[in-house]
């Protein structure tokens, strides 16, 4: 195999970047993590992602790939080893559908349920998150979304397992709880305890601290 040059442009604490780190770890790919300052975007970031100027960006032998789920699919196809997506076309379609559902219906609503000043707006988003979680709760049939082993959808849902509990604690909300969504809650605990996942999650305290100060600044600016 030719020299593999793999770089990941990212920030510590981003669930999207974390998805890619999990995929790389799963395939045993060695890479260089290049931390970015999103307030002061590097030339490298602008060169590799001129359209969206966001992280994560995977650069493989100088070729950039953007968008976390697209990167994960790329990693699955470019490297042998444990499969992330199933082989069957219909199962693959379901995996892509549910990953998109998580992107469209969970991320923004979860964020807005915490980091919004307007009370009505906040409540509306909490409701949306609950609706989305109920749908996922009903969908979760086995141990993981991927079945006996975790797969594409579980990796896509890493923000639910790690980030949602942090931001809900910051704001004193109940988004993901054992009482409301027992299967989803159990999933989150199982998932975060998987060795591969554990190694890819950022440290809890600094991330919590980051969200807490952001939340407090938001409340302060509203008064």
């Amino acid at each position: 195999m030719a020299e593999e040059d793999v770089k990941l442009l990212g920030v510590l604490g981003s669930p999207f970047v974390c998805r890619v780190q999990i995929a790389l770890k799963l395939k045993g790919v060695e890479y260089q993590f290049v931390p970015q300052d999103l307030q002061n975007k590097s030339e490298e970031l602008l060169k590799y992602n001129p359209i969206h100027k966001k992280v994560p960006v995977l650069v493989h032998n100088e070729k950039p790939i953007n968008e976390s789920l697209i990167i994960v699919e790329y990693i699955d196809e470019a490297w042998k080893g444990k499969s992330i997506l199933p082989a069957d076309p219909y199962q693959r379609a379901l995996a892509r559908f549910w990953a998109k559902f998580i992107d469209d219906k969970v991320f923004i609503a979860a964020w807005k349920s915490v980091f919004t000043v307007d009370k009505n707006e906040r409540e509306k988003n909490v409701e949306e998150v609950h609706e989305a979680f109920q749908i996922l709760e009903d969908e979760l049939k086995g141990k993981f979304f991927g079945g006996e082993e975790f797969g594409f959808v579980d990796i896509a849902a890493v923000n639910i397992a790690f980030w949602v509990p942090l931001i809900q604690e910051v704001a004193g909300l109940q988004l993901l709880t054992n009482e409301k969504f027992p299967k989803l809650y159990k999933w989150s605990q199982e998932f975060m305890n998987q060795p591969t996942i554990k190694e890819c999650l950022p440290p809890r305290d600094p991330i919590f601290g980051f969200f807490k100060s952001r939340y407090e600044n938001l409340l302060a600016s509203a008064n």
Partner: protein
Amino acid sequence: MDSSDNEQVRLLGKWASPFSNRVDLALKLKGVPYKYSEEDLANKSVDLLNYNPVHKKVPVLVHNGNSIAESLVILQYIDEAWNNHPFLPQEPYQRALARFWCKTLDDKILPAIWNACWSNEKGREKAVEEALEALKILQDELKDKKFFGGETIGLVDIAANFIGYWVSILQEIAGLELLTIEKFPKLYKWSQEYINHPVIKEGLPPRDELFAFFKASAKK
């Protein structure tokens, strides 16, 4: 195995929707026979609610009793379930690029153009600027290729049906000049190749009817 029952392919769609049309085009390019049903979203059918309970939207593809929703997910499914006329190249990086452009079409390019065409006077200038920027990004990606897929229609071309066909109608209704031969010669040329492609031509909804449909919406 009774092939006619097991291979039954159904598309629940809306004739004027580019998202629904993407699936028509994909099935026609693969030469897959299917049954089409026009859905009334104001009065959702039992089938629609059954096959897409999560979003209750079209398009929905049903194949061998399995239902798939979300147009880009459906397109990739069709490409993987039927091996002829591949929509994606073999090489992983090229595949990733194609997926990226499909997503960028949906997340950035289509909304920018749609907003410009439906913008009121107040937001018009900025909306048009964003739409032109979006078209430039797309043209830069096309470069000198005949199609986004190269010599043949690929996943991005199918996903870009809105650009190839709907934009010309919507911009006329809005009185805007977005995709023109002067502003975007390469992308314009692509749109002409696209709508004249023998399979695509048969798969697109009739222009007069589409024009009338959107013009009526504009009046409301």
